[in-house]
């Protein structure tokens, strides 16, 4: 906390996430019952947190996530449709109304890799590129949760995902993965 006991943005984030020690937390609990300015700043933190949660839960954004997070989603009861692909594989895929998330688990030789970029092509044209995506070197997987909302709206089509390792020497292909997507209900 700074002068006058007001809490900065990072302190409020730490407070919201239960990262403060018991004494600091209690002090801030008390301060927030007195101080409307800090209260409104906490409202902003909570609103950003809720916004991120809602965006992810309703499938408005994509995310590259660790496997442990997928396990957590599964344990939380979320209906997952999982596709697992080795380099060069192709798969027929879709998303059904009951599916909460689609999980694309891409296997790749990731030992010693520092940075991974991904590109998505459709009809031979690059549609999206993702730089420096999170990956799990130990299990050799890059796990993408596409934005379910956009996926539901997509027509039947074929998409190719390409993973490359990037280092000082340039790019090295790790694998390409082909998704034949069928739109549910036609």
């Amino acid at each position, binding site marked *: 906390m700074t002068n*006058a006991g007001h809490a900065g*943005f*990072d302190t409020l*984030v730490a*407070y*919201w*996430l*239960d*990262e403060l020690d018991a004494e600091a937390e209690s002090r801030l*609990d*008390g301060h*927030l*019952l*007195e*101080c*409307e*300015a800090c*209260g*409104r700043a*906490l*409202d*902003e933190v*909570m*609103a*950003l*947190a*809720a*916004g*991120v*949660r*809602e*965006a*992810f*839960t309703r499938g*408005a*954004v*994509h*995310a*590259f*996530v*660790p496997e*442990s*997070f997928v396990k*957590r989603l599964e344990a*939380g009861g979320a209906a997952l449709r999982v596709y697992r692909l080795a380099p060069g594989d192709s798969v027929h895929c879709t998303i059904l109304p009951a599916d909460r998330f689609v999980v694309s688990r891409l296997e790749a030789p990731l030992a010693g890799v520092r940075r991974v970029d991904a590109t998505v092509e459709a009809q031979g044209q690059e549609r999206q590129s*993702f*730089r*420096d*995506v*999170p990956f*799990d*070197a*130990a299990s050799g997987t890059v796990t993408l949760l596409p*934005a379910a909302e956009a996926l539901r709206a997509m027509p039947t089509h074929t998409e190719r995902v390409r993973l490359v390792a990037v280092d000082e020497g340039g790019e090295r292909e790790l694998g390409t993965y082909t998704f034949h997507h069928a739109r549910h209900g036609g």
Partner: protein
Amino acid sequence: MDADATDPLPAEAGLARRIASAAPGVDRAAEAELCRRLAPRIRRYGLRHLRDAEAAADLVQIVLMKLLEKLRAGGLRDPDQVVSFVFGTCRLVVLDLRRGDIRRERLLEAYGEDLAIADIAPPPRLDQARVERCLQALPERERAVLVLTFHEDRDAGEVAGQLGLTAGNVRVIRHRALARLRDCVLGGEAA
């Protein structure tokens, strides 16, 4: 209006004094004003410690009723102590609510129409479409850290364990990501 942001206590103490001195009558205006001021703060306490909007709303109702009862009965000698009374009551009631000792139905039975007293403004929300555009525009690692953090409100240590980073790394990325997201959502920087 914003004078209370810097020096909030005299206003609450003054209202508490009015409520106490109105006894055996009831100063409805002072009570409503005191509730209006305190309710959002109690709700924040409840959201933080109960992590549930409905439970936080229950906390607001219970704590305000206990406060008004205490004030009407002249039980708070020093009205300056109104905030510390609220703090102490919040703590106790949160424990009760966590144990499930208080159920909403019982609450409604006990207090009936008085519950309307704490008819307060809902917590602020952001433009969700804008949040989503801004979140989608973040670098991959920053979006991943925010999703892992806020999907279930996990601390930096837990997120670090999932991503194979240190907690310090996660705090740095989280700070940058939230700053960028906030600027994008609240500033004019449409993604």
